[in-house]
């Protein structure tokens, strides 16, 4: 076991354990914090795979953005110290059974499949390369999806403002 392997297993354990705690704890604020640790674990795996840019994006967007948004909405909608309602045992058992069967089926397929690795040389994944590909209009560029996503973000922003506007009392 080298140091790199140990780090990988630690990151995997952090991700999975905090993921399980996030869906099983009954205190919603703790669920949000466990989700935060799970996302940090995934960012660590990206760092471990040497994909620094995507790891940085993961930290900025998920850990810095979405989790903070979720925590704010918890503050706005939950009473302090109130636990989530207990679920029926039958529903829990059947959900766990369904999730476990799906997981077992997926892993069975993965372990029986043979993956063929590309034999060509690896390209370095750096920010300059990503930026050039992102704004390129030739066959391997991603200019069109980039523009479409920017339109989507604009539409989502306007949609959020319209949805969250306080409606007037007489229109209710």
């Amino acid at each position: 076991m080298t140091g790199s392997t140990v780090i990988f297993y630690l990151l995997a354990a952090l991700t999975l354990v905090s993921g399980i705690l996030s869906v099983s704890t009954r205190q919603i604020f703790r669920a949000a914090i466990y989700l935060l640790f799970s996302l940090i674990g995934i960012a660590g795996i990206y760092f471990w795979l040497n994909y620094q840019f995507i790891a940085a994006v993961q930290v900025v967007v998920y850990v810095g953005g979405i989790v903070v948004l979720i925590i704010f909405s918890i503050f706005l909608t939950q009473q302090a110290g109130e636990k989530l309602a207990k679920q029926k045992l039958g529903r829990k058992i059947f959900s766990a059974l369904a999730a476990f069967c799906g997981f077992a089926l997926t892993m069975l397929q993965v372990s029986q499949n043979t993956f063929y690795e590309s034999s060509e040389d690896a390209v370095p994944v750096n920010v300059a390369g990503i930026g050039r590909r992102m704004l390129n209009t030739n066959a391997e560029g991603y200019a069109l999806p980039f523009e479409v996503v920017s339109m989507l973000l604009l539409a989502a922003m306007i949609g959020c403002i319209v949805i969250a506007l306080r409606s007037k009392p007489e229109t209710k």
Partner: protein
Amino acid sequence: MTPGLFHILFISAALFFIGVYGFLTRRNLITMLMSIELILNSVNLNFIGFNKYLWPNKMDGLFFAIFIIAIAAAEAAVAIAIIINLYRSHNSIDVGNAEELKY
């Protein structure tokens, strides 16, 4: 055992089904949204793992992951706006209480 593609796929599948379990058992809209975030992250991990181990000469998986992150951010923002609006009108964010499509 040196970590490879199989390990990444294992983490990804486990995280996906943890998210599915959370989505099926939770009845609070915010916690359901958290489960969806877990599912989206497992998908990203899958794309990055395949890109790293099977096609290191290309960057397509990376770009898919970047676009999924952007769309997930938009989705979370819209979902939280809807949840807060629902809380204003119903005083509860339990899915059992959100039965009407139009208020």
